[in-house]
């Protein structure tokens, strides 16, 4: 923000005038962006210094906030770096991402989360908010120094062993209790480990035929049921990562009705793709939790529409191609998602009439920012607010080409599909990180470092 700049310096001199953008898909207005904020809205605005963008037919939304991103750095720079992952994020319409802790070394100390935070600032494409590990080395045995990470320059508020489940009930209880000291939240990867030993895909009709070890829905649901009861017992905040089954939705709905402080996330791929794709044995469809059934997809969409599921989280998980060019059982789990999330949500929820663009802003920006406690993100599109915005052409159609993406990962399950909706511009702190649908330049944090 300009207020954070040293006196007399204006590191962000960008000024843009968006003409005729539909705010959250509704009322059309001009927006004048300058000094990192929305200076003015209304019709017939003019500004001599501003670059004018014709936003006729375009929708303006708050910049998207991902609660679940794997940036792979430090440790797996062959798969992704903070630089490439956040370029992908900006292109996908994001202005903030939460970087999951399963890097190497694991983000389980103040030092590692500050490193990731600094890499994010140096890159300048989005706000990078590190997620801290719940347990040392994600080993599920001993609490990591949660307080030190919270107090660090990275100001960690979300903690997760994602990739691994905090399966020990006592440890989970302690973690839920402990983070209350700094208003943190535990984001659980709900997977009962014994029920999913060697699991390769959803357990059911298709796994029976394919002879692949099943990942039963109950292994997710049993952990969620336990965790919401623990959250109730110790009056803590729980966030459930990548909900994938109809049964999980029922449990979360029940918990919310009882006033339990639980939020839930769903990935774009679980809103669309089903286990039938595994019949190809193409590991691009291998993901954890696995693709489920049609009934699950329907239940997940309804859960977003009725508010049971609060947010979209991409679970963007890039892998080098050799990790997918192999037998199914040998392949790594995970899919890229940052550059397709907006389009997939538009296709599955907006174009089906299940949600509005205002709802889209809530589930991709406002609520994710609230869960992650990002003050400058997920705000209203109104004068005086920070200019973290995305300009979308909902009428555009494009065909997914993983080779053309900014992420290093080529593992998009949507390759070759035609998707609706394109990001025309992304504004991060008033600076256009994306213009005309292409990367522009990063925001320069130099003045704030």
């Amino acid at each position, binding site marked *: 923000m300009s207020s954070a700049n040293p006196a007399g310096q204006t590191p962000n001199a960008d000024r843009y005038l968006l003409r005729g953008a539909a705010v959250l898909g509704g009322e059309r207005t001009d927006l004048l962006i300058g000094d990192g904020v929305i200076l003015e809205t209304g019709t017939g605005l003019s500004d001599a210094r501003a670059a004018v963008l014709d936003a006729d037919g375009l929708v303006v939304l708050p910049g998207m906030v991902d609660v679940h991103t794997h940036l792979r750095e430090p440790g797996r720079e062959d798969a992704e770096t903070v630089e490439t992952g956040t370029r992908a994020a900006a292109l996908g319409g994001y202005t903030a991402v939460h970087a999951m802790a399963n890097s190497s070394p694991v983000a389980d100390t103040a030092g590692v989360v500050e490193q990731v935070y600094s890499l994010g600032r140096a890159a300048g494409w989005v706000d990078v908010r590190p997620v801290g590990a719940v347990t040392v080395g994600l080993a599920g045995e001993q609490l990591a120094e949660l307080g030190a990470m919270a107090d660090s320059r990275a100001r960690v508020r979300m903690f997760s062993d994602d990739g691994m489940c905090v399966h020990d009930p006592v440890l989970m209880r302690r973690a839920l209790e402990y983070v209350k000291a700094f208003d943190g939240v535990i984001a659980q990867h709900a997977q009962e480990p014994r029920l999913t030993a060697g699991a*390769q895909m959803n*357990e*059911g*009709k*298709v*796994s*029976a*035929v*394919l*002879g*692949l070890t*099943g990942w*039963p829905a109950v292994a997710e649901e049993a952990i969620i049921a336990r965790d919401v009861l623990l959250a109730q017992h110790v009056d803590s905040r729980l966030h459930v990562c990548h909900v994938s089954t109809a049964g999980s939705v029922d449990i979360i709905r029940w918990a919310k009705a009882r006033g339990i402080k639980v939020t839930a996330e769903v990935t774009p791929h679980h809103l669309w793709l089903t286990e039938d794709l595994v019949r*190809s*044995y*193409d590991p691009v469809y291998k993901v954890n939790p696995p693709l489920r059934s049609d009934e699950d997809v329907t239940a997940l969409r309804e859960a977003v529409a009725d508010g049971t599921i609060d947010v979209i989280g991409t679970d963007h998980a890039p892998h080098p191609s*050799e990790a997918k*060019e*192999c*037998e*199914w*059982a*040998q392949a790594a789990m995970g899919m890229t998602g940052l550059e397709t999330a907006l389009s997939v949500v538009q296709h599955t929820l907006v174009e089906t009439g299940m949600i509005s663009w205002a709802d889209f802003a809530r589930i991709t920006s406002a609520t994710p920012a609230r869960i992650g406690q990002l003050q400058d993100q997920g705000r209203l599109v109104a004068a005086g607010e920070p200019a973290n915005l995305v300009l979308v052409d909902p009428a555009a159609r494009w065909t997914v080409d993983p080779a053309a993406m900014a992420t290093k990962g080529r593992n998009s399950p949507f390759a070759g599909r035609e998707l609706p909706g394109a990001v025309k511009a992304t504004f991060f702190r008033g600076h256009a990180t994306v213009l005309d649908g292409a990367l522009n330049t990063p925001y320069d944090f130099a003045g704030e470092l």
Partner: protein
Amino acid sequence: MRHLLSTEDLGRGDAVRILDTAEEMSAVGDREVKKLPALRGRTVVNLFFEDSTRTRISFEAAAKRLSADVINFAAKGSSVSKGESLKDTAQTLEAMSADAVVIRHWASGAPQRLANSGWIDAAVVNAGDGTHEHPTQALLDAFTMRRHWSRLNRNASTGADLTGLRVAIAGDVLHSRVARSNVWLLRTLGASVTLVAPPTLLPVGVEHWPCEVSYDLDSTLAKGVDAMMMLRVQAERMNASFFPSAREYARRWGFDDRRLASLDSLGLKDTIIMHPGPMNRGLEISSAAADSPRSTVLAQVRNGVSVRMAALYLLLSGDTREERNELTKVSSS
């Protein structure tokens, strides 16, 4: 047919054609010179990521009887150690101009991956993949059953299917590629199938399969069975709580001497007893049952070569009528 990957997607026409061709091949095996020139100059690679001497030598014998060049390639790499990648191996075989790759792999779907990846141009034959399929085993089982069924019905085998045949398959269905391939193929050929197993050794989702499911071997036999197929059960399964002990398993689901005797009292005088091998005598099958005149275990091994010859022949030599007539001429001369 471009590849032979599974019986799930094998149509009735192709299945019957393989069985009929196998009958012709079997006639070659009865001759003094057991060799046909059909695949001279062609290269068949046996690519085994998992040890199975019996399956490898069966394919090797089949390819050699068709005069193909055979290369045995035991690839390193297991579920634990990664070893050479499937892609690199495939590209090596492509560089060697393999015409067919017979692949055995511990990972379900590896043959399909090989066939559809674009890494290789050769015909791919699945010789057993993980717990997915083992199509040539099911074809040799069907071949064995068809001969038996035709003899009983005084029909010619050729052109026939298995309509009316009652088959029971007992054992570890969950981990069995043989069971899966048999269920699909037997359905396609018109037989009725009952799977018999402890509930722990049946996959979730088996209720969608085109067969009956029973937990009780005796009541299944009492309803009448024409072919009783026993599946290999690994005693180690009891360590993962699939069943309490080998003894309890054998008592409830093994084909023991008491059940062998019961076939006579049930009036099932023509029922055959099948096993894909290798057998765990005393666990899923008693020695008396395995060695009885009802047992087709050795016939299955013999028929395996004929069926694999048929599969390789149909995949590699094209499938024109002229060529088939040519084959008939050679094999009957």
